[in-house]
């Protein structure tokens, strides 16, 4: 294996990993705020992708489509929390899990009814195509994804640390009772945290659309994102990103060295190992309730 090939694989792994990282981020945020694992997150990515499709078809330029898509995602998240999740907040864990699955299925079925399983795509938003550096090919779209993900993590870190609403979200994630006693409107905070995670999902959708296409099964990514979130730690935002990138690298290199079977199995083996040995991931802090 030459250096060039190894480097190319590195780029490929980081590129795929950035995709996982983005969706993992969107999983970790509502979990941090409300301990809810949102299995509909994949479909929220799909919503973003289709929103971008529709907006682009209206001949709007990319720099308009991007923020509007994010906004649509935000609104959808608010709606889901307010109309559906809020009513079952008090229910046992599995009810919430199944409810998010059901919501995901509703979204997917509705999308499928109108657009069927046709594969759509939107154009490369960047004005330049792939280029070579030292014999290695770089696709700027992946760089754009990595850039956006990094900016996102920076913004979110700032938000949670300095913004009053962000601080309120952290308070709610630590203890809803205490936060309420401190005058925080827990309901509003939860609603906004769903909006934010849904917006991130939508961002993922539009960023990924030119790379992997648009069809109702885009949401399948959520499984890989879950593995990434476990690796990184469900309570850590940078952890989600690191987890995603690591997963991408593991997949790519194992595929190159051991074939596609290994590539298929390895993510789940890694998941199991982490769950057994280090369930809160590389960077997560909250300890597990152990019996």
């Amino acid at each position: 294996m030459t250096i060039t090939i190894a480097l190319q694989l590195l780029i490929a792994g980081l590129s795929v990993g950035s995709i996982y990282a983005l969706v993992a981020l969107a999983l970790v945020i509502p979990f941090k705020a409300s301990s809810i694992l949102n299995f509909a997150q994949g479909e929220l990515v799909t919503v973003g992708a289709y929103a971008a499709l529709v907006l682009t078809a209206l001949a709007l330029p990319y720099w308009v489509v991007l923020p509007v898509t994010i906004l649509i995602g935000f609104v959808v998240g608010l709606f889901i929390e307010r109309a559906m999740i809020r009513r079952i907040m008090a229910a046992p864990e599995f009810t919430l899990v199944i409810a998010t699955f059901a919501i995901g299925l509703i979204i997917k079925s509705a999308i499928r009814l109108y657009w069927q399983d046709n594969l759509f795509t939107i154009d490369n938003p960047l004005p330049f195509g792939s280029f070579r550096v030292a014999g290695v090919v770089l696709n700027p779209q992946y760089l754009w994804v990595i850039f956006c993900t990094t900016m996102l993590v920076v913004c979110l870190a700032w938000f949670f640390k300095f913004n009053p609403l962000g601080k309120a979200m952290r308070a709610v994630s630590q203890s809803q009772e205490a936060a309420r006693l401190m005058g925080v409107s827990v309901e509003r905070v939860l609603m906004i945290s769903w909006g934010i995670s849904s917006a991130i999902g939508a961002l993922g959708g539009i960023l990924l659309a030119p790379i992997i296409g648009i069809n109702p099964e885009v949401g399948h990514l959520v499984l890989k994102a879950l593995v990434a979130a476990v690796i990184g730690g469900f309570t850590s935002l940078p952890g989600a990103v690191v987890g995603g990138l690591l997963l991408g690298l593991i997949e790519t290199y194992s595929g190159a060295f051991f074939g596609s079977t290994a590539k298929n199995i390895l993510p789940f083996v890694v998941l199991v190992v982490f769950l057994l040995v280090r369930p809160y991931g590389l960077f997560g802090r909250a300890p597990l309730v152990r019996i």
Partner: protein
Amino acid sequence: MIKKLVGLGLASIAAMLFASTASAQGVTKDEILIGGFGPITGPAAYIGLGGRDGLTMAIKEINAAGGVNGRKFRLIFEDDGHSPTRALGAVKKLIDQDKVFMIFCAAGSNATVGTIDYIKAQQRVMYVSFASAPAVTFPFSSYLFRGATTEVPRYGELYSEFIAEGLKAKKVAVMNGREEYPKNEGNALATALKDVYKVDVAARAEFNIGDKDFTPQLLAVKNSGAEVVAFFGNPAEAAIAMRQARELGLKQKFFVGATMVDKSFTLAAKENAEGATGFSLIPFLPGTPNPTLQAWEAKWKKEYPNLPVGRPNVFDVMAYTDMYVLAEAIKRAGPDLNTKSLIAGLEQIKNFSSSPLAAPITFTNKHHIGNLTLTVMEVKGGNWQPVGWKPSRPSEILKRYE
């Protein structure tokens, strides 16, 4: 006393005979009841919806022209959600509850195979339009017929002949997904290339369906020195793979599997698809600038004005043309219509094609493989266009049925 009993006995026998010939299940004096099934929900919905709608439109036209032998068709179509369990349930309902005369199968392979035993036990005819699973026609059963879709081994025969003799490639790389269908296509091609045409398969690479990155495989292909890359998978993977291939500097021509010879592939892969070749099940893909096809599409759009992008698709066309084959067979079966006469009528079909949109269908009493022809196409100007290459080798498949 004895006379009475004998009389009663004769009358019952006569009644039974009369019943078995005149009132075959699903056939009345003026109606033939057909049961159809296929996936209309779930990820494979585009298959069943195309099947149902193509079938329905053909039936409407045939009925408007007076039906066949004075009888009109009525269709009951059930969903199978692409699951063998539900397909079996659908078929049981259609045959047992709705009392249909025969079954038109617009389902995928697994769902179809799940129903075969029951159909044979019930002694009903099932006409399979899309499923390519070998179990439908081999071992031979007089009740099962395959229409527009061709046999899996035929793909291997045609692909290898085209790549070896049409494209004149001496070194070929084969990339396939690890699902059954693309894997079969890949294996069939590799075997035929090596054994029959002595062409070097310089690289074999596999990928998982759902993969988003093909760098390792494409690098292996690039270094193999192959002139043609044969790619078998789904349009989603093909689009990504072909884009990455161009980025990584691969200059080879791509040859793609049957599922990618479709508008969705050209829409998704855009300029990266240019120059790709593949085989199509029907002579003209929806969207091709051919007058007969365009007239048909206009008719279809009038019938179904509110349908989404991507329809009509290949399944609409195949189900539509297959219904006409069925109608022709029923005409030949004559006024005394039952399962046996239907089988006889179908086996009389030889090189029948109801329009230029349909590949010619042939059945004999030794085999029920309707279609052995596929049309070579190339992506030109963003669309799949027929290329005009025709195979010259006869197929080995029919030898199995001698």
